[in-house]
């Protein structure tokens, strides 16, 4: 049974006349790594907020581990939050500029496990993501984007979620740092048996990180399949165009 399923979701932002998400159905198996790919306006960022419960769809249903998302959200919201965590695109905007990193890192544990983690625990998470624990006393603006994104990962993982939703986690980072963060993400995923839902516009990232790809356009799912299916044998006209364009603007080496 799939871990996460969405059936006929329709969503529109308040005060908007158009539907951001149009009749979207999808399913994600436990332990897999799925990429949601699309261009601007495709609804890919919105869909993971719907799947994780940050937003509520006006129509349709989301089922997580057999339970209806809305019911779960009402009955035990903390449990739901512990189940899935998010990592956002801009690490700078993901941290309260007035909070030191030690405090920021401990937020999920404080809020969801109702306890205060000690310095050792926080320090070991920092080391786990390749950072020195001495950075814990710093403020966000004192770290580079890549470092902050690692802290972001540590923060999300610290309460042991089963699912990680990553919204363009490397798009704001320098190219040389992107690979490091993605590798870290892969490591954490295999070590902790995580289900990964990765949203991106970058087919190269998805090609290396994900087993399945869901292609979205203007709020609808246009095609889905294994990474190989989508990248090598795309069927839908839009997907074909997308893959071709992506290849045209990415590096081609002759070796």
């Amino acid at each position: 049974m799939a871990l996460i399923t969405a059936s006929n979701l329709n969503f529109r932002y308040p005060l908007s006349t158009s539907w951001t998400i149009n009749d979207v159905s999808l399913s994600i198996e436990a332990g897999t790594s799925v990429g949601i790919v699309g261009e601007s306006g495709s609804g890919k960022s919105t869909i993971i907020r719907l799947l994780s419960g940050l937003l509520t769809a006006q129509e349709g249903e989301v089922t997580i581990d057999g339970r209806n998302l809305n019911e779960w959200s009402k009955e035990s919201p903390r449990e739901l939050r512990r189940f899935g965590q998010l990592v956002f695109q801009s690490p700078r905007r993901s941290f309260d500029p007035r909070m030191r990193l030690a405090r920021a890192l401990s937020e999920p544990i404080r809020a969801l496990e109702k306890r205060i983690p000690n310095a050792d625990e926080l320090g070991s998470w920092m080391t786990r993501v390749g950072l020195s624990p001495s950075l814990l006393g710093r403020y966000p603006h004192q770290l580079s984007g890549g470092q902050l994104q690692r802290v972001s990962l540590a923060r999300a993982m610290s309460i042991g979620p089963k699912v990680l939703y990553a919204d363009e986690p490397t798009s704001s980072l320098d190219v040389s740092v992107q690979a490091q963060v993605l590798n870290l993400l892969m490591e954490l995923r295999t070590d902790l048996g995580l289900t990964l839902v990765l949203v991106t516009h970058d087919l190269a990232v998805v090609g290396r990180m994900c087993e399945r790809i869901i292609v979205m356009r203007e709020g609808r799912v246009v095609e889905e399949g294994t990474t190989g299916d989508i990248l090598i044998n795309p069927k839908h006209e839009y997907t074909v165009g997308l893959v071709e364009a992506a290849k045209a603007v990415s590096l081609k080496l002759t070796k």
Partner: protein
Amino acid sequence: MLEIKNFRISIAGKTLVKINHLAAEPGERLGLVGESGSGKTLTVLSILGLLPSMMDVEGSIIFDGKELVGSPENVLAKIRGRDIAMVFQDPSRSLNPTMKIGRQVGETLHLHTDLSKSAIKQKVIELMKSVQLPDPEKLYTRYPHELSGGQQQRVMIAMAIACKPKLLIADEPTTALDVTVQQGILKLILQLSKENDMAVIFVSHNLGVVQAVSERIAVMNSGEIVEIGPTSTILDSPSATYTKELIGANPSIPDAQELNRLLGTRFPTDRGD
């Protein structure tokens, strides 16, 4: 056509950019690659004399026989838009939101030529067609916010090529755009360069994009040029360590072979391809 020699940009005594030699031939497409902080944007801004006043510039930039460094503002103003044009990263921030498209595209013509208003309008429509903007007559009276990102960038390019410049400097012109739109803009720049014998300096952190447009590539790191050579040489047999690192960090879309390899080692599932 353009030669940068013994060039240095510094601020308060600290050197930001140091280039011994960089040249571009007429009609040549040169890619300038580097990460943020490498100095690539500062370098191209200094060609047009657009650096902030607190920065000091030493050395020589010779364009078409004229020395640009230290040139007075009025001389530089004549060159900007007419002989050397520039296109920036975010078109929505570079276009005047309160001015109609047609008028903006015609501005350089208005400044640098003596053409009449109606002649300028004619030219503008032609320009908009040459950058493949749909319905130029209609778009002429629209405002920037009514256009998509890709269309806005085409407008910027139309503005830039209006006076048939010898050199087009494009600083990350496609970074803010969707991939399908990027492809179109790159094709356009390539085409315009060939048709009009216009040299292009294409600045980007994305090697794939630079590869698509450039004949030669200069790699910058920490304010210096680390390596420079024909595109194929730089990408297939790079000599500098930094270049190799940069190539490694710019992923390509995996092909079938690579996917099989990745699936075999990375994902322990029994799913076939």
